[in-house]
């Protein structure tokens, strides 16, 4: 690991100044991903600015019935929060489905959004990777890709975003509040991530040195009837091979509103707009759920060993929506 200096400011302005003044500086949250990547040699910052002493550690009531979640809130506190559990249950379930008790106590909301892919080539500095070393190639397309993307990928990168939490946030139209050199800004979660195209090294739309301060959950009564379902290769403590966050409102057998987002299938949490369009205003039946899932997955471009994700995600969507229909 390369040597680095360390600062733990208590004021946001000091954090922004420290980052702006040092090339290759990184914000440090819980460290569950960044410290690991430093050990692996994937990251080698010369300065770590620890953001855990900044005043972003609260879950507060937002405007009109929403919630404002500080970027430094630990995953475990977010999942235990009773307002989250009651008003956005899929978010609590998504967080609880990720990592372990120890890691959830460490990991922060901001860090969770900005964590890096777990693609094995990205994490292995002895292998080429267009994300880590632009232009070096992507061995995953021909090699180990059974858990990589079927949607939104490019010839240059097929990595997935690994977060569970972000899938629920995508379903709920969360808005990310940031502070940066150019002042405060609000970024809808749907605009936070970039598809890889031919520049997979650029993963978000945030300028270098930008600090996430708050994640705002808009008021969304529908979210009270929401659920997160995750498939993985062991019963606990594993990344998803596919996941669904969904919310459903049904009146007289008709879908009046619906939210669906998919995890572990794309370089970003994947909002299933095509499935939602297919469902809105139509009958709330298992057949309709199947057709909606097919509408979304029709644009999937699987590789040799991840074709299984298409029926997996179809089944996850149908099962989750069916459970929400029963509960509504």
């Amino acid at each position, binding site marked *: *690991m390369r*040597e*680095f*200096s*360390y600062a*733990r400011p208590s004021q946001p302005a000091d954090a922004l100044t420290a980052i702006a003044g040092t090339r290759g500086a990184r914000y*440090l949250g*819980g*460290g*569950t991903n960044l*410290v*690991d990547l430093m*050990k692996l040699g994937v990251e080698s910052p*010369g*300065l*770590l600015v*620890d953001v*855990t002493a900044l005043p972003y550690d609260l879950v507060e009531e937002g405007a009109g019935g929403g919630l404002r979640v500080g970027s430094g809130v630990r995953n*475990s506190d977010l*999942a*235990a929060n*009773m307002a989250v*559990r*009651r008003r956005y*249950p899929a978010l*609590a*379930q998504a967080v*609880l*489905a990720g*990592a*372990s*008790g*120890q*890691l959830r*106590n*460490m990991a922060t909301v901001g860090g969770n959004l900005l964590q890096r892919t777990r693609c094995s080539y990205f994490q292995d500095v002895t292998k080429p990777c267009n994300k880590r070393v632009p232009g070096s190639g992507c061995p995953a397309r021909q090699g180990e890709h059974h858990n990589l993307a079927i949607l939104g990928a490019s010839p240059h990168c097929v990595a997935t975003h690994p977060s569970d939490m972000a899938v629920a946030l995508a379903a709920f139209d969360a808005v990310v509040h940031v502070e940066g050199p150019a002042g405060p800004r609000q970024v809808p979660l749907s605009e936070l991530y970039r598809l890889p195209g031919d520049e997979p090294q650029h993963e978000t739309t945030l300028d270098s040195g930008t600090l996430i301060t708050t994640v705002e959950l808009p008021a969304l009564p529908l979210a009270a009837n929401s659920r997160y379902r995750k498939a993985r290769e062991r*019963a*606990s*403590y594993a990344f998803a091979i596919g996941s669904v966050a969904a919310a459903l409102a049904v009146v007289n057998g008709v879908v009046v509103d619906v939210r669906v987002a998919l995890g572990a299938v794309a370089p970003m949490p994947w909002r299933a707009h095509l499935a939602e369009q297919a469902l809105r205003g139509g009958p709330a039946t298992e057949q309709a759920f199947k057709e909606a899932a097919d509408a979304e997955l029709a644009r999937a471009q699987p590789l040799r060993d991840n074709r299984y994700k298409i029926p997996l995600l179809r089944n996850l969507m149908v099962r989750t929506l069916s459970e929400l229909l029963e509960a509504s």
Partner: protein
Amino acid sequence: MSDGVATGSRISLTVNGGVYELELDNRTTLLDAVRERLDLVGAKKGCDHGQCGACTMLLDGRRANACLILAVAAEGRAITTIEGVASGEGLHPLQQAFVDRDGFQCGYCTPGQICSAVAMLAEVEAGWPSAVTADLYSERAVLDADEIRERMSGNLCRCGAYVNIVAAIEDVAR
């Protein structure tokens, strides 16, 4: 040193109630600082990547993977290791239960298992749900074997002593 900026720090760590002044390289993890500098070698280095739980310590009563925490970032936190979970001379009830139930074979994961279980029981007490909690809205989690297995999934045991680990924790949870 790079560019004349300090890459080491002088910090004080609070471990098991004692305060220790240390001068260390910023790269030092909490696990390495506690094991190599304080000679508290109960916490183990298993994977060193946050995947096995053998390094589990308590920070302000909460369990965490000490292999992924930088020692400089742990300044100001009350750290508890396996050496500090018992009060007085006797064993912590969970330590005794692991002995009674034979909750280990080689013992390498055991300090992490016990630290993790101590904090896990406090999480249940605080009403935290888990991924297998049926009623997400309940203020009071009920700790059955499924819940114990899910909540302890961050602690691997390569000997496979899980059956007796679950039994030991159930004894104390009752």
